[in-house]
């Protein structure tokens, strides 16, 4: 019971973090460098998902992807099944809910970069794309890493959205956090403690390795300061 939940959770967290990287980096780049006058409204909107209680957000997402909404009908027609109670549904909900945690630290660290370095890159003939990969991303890495760690950990722990959209189907949409929740609800504290300890140690090891690597600068990206 714990093993499928653990693999599912990990898969979810990895997929969500990866997607947030893909969505979050350009969004953060835009938030950091755009000169559009109404940008600040977008900045405010990006923070909004976390203002709603997760189950409530999950409920709205559930309605939005359900057969009563145009999107839900379109998706159903396209794939033959609904988005709710599937892994994809979980991903959609989690990405939405963790977006602020990923985008905000990234945008903050991009905005703090020395513009002169971006100028220098352009003057050496680099496109925006190349400048992003070679200058913005490596120098903004502390913020990007923070964003990814926060959204990864948050996806591991969050269960409100996941429960609402996923329907707690063991092996399919039951994550470890739902499992622990269930065990606590069932007053089965011994098992719950064990599961929680497992999740905590696992994450601790993961994060310790990550931060340890960063410290030892095994990436060669960190030690220029």
């Amino acid at each position: 019971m714990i093993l499928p939940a653990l693999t599912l959770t990990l898969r979810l967290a990895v997929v969500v973090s990866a997607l947030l990287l893909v969505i979050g980096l350009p969004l953060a780049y835009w938030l950091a460098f755009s000169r559009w006058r109404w940008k600040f409204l977008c900045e405010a909107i990006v923070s909004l998902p976390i203002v709603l209680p997760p189950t409530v957000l999950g409920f709205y997402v559930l309605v939005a992807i359900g057969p009563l909404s145009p999107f839900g009908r379109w998706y159903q027609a396209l794939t033959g099944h609904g988005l709710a109670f599937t892994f994809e549904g979980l991903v959609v909900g989690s990405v939405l809910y963790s977006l602020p945690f990923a985008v905000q630290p990234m945008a903050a660290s991009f905005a703090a970069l020395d513009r002169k370095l971006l100028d220098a890159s352009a003057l050496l003939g680099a496109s925006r794309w190349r400048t992003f990969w070679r200058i913005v991303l490596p120098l903004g890495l502390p913020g990007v890493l923070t964003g990814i760690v926060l959204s990864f950990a948050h996806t591991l722990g969050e269960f409100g959205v996941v429960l609402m959209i996923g329907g707690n189907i063991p092996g399919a949409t039951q994550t470890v956090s739902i499992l622990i929740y269930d065990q606590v609800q069932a007053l089965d504290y011994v098992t719950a403690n064990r599961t929680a300890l497992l999740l905590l140690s696992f994450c601790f090891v993961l994060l310790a390795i990550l931060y340890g690597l960063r410290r030892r600068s095994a990436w060669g990206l960190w030690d220029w300061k």
Partner: protein
Amino acid sequence: LTVAAAADLNYALKELAAQYQKKTGTAVTLSFGSSGNLFSQIQNGAPYDLFFSADEDYPKRLAAAGLVEGGLPRTYAVGHLVLWVRNGVSVGRSHQVVDILLQPSIKRIAIANPQTAPYGRAAMSALEHLGLKDKLASKLVFGENVSQAAQFAQSGNAQAGLIPLSLALAPSMKDAGSYWELPADSYPELRQGVVIISASKHKKAAQAFLDYVTSAEGSAVLRQYGFRVPDGR
């Protein structure tokens, strides 16, 4: 007076509290939650005076731990389990619960989590009794509690749900679908217990409110919101 109550009592207790306040002038603060959470909280010293559970188990455990006034919990209501189907989902002609559940148009059936929610357990044993457990096992989705199971069905993501009658009568559910009661012998009786918390500072008032709820007047309200009132009283 602070009253902790299971979520399925939401409408019924609100009405009862309003009537009671009109009658006696005593203000009743209602705090809804899942019975399990409320149980944990009471164990850890929550300042509730009364606890209306959705089953008899949690009150019994509290009683065993010596946290309640008087020996055993009182049963104030018995819940019904119904099959709720959204409008627009084809239910066939038979109108037998078993036949409806086997309709191909019903791809997902929402129930509350049988591990934690009494109505979930009841739903599982009903399915087993009707001989559908294995056939439908892959169609089940589990809500954290009965409300969430109702939401799954109400939002159309699940085509059917096994939920308490009290929720099926809620305004937003009543208009959106129809329900069929499950045979009463297909699941164990859903007796809901109530206890007065021993740490309460308002035990008299709590007793008075409890008496009101179990009075004929209170029972009528409970019945109106989809509960049966227990036999023998």
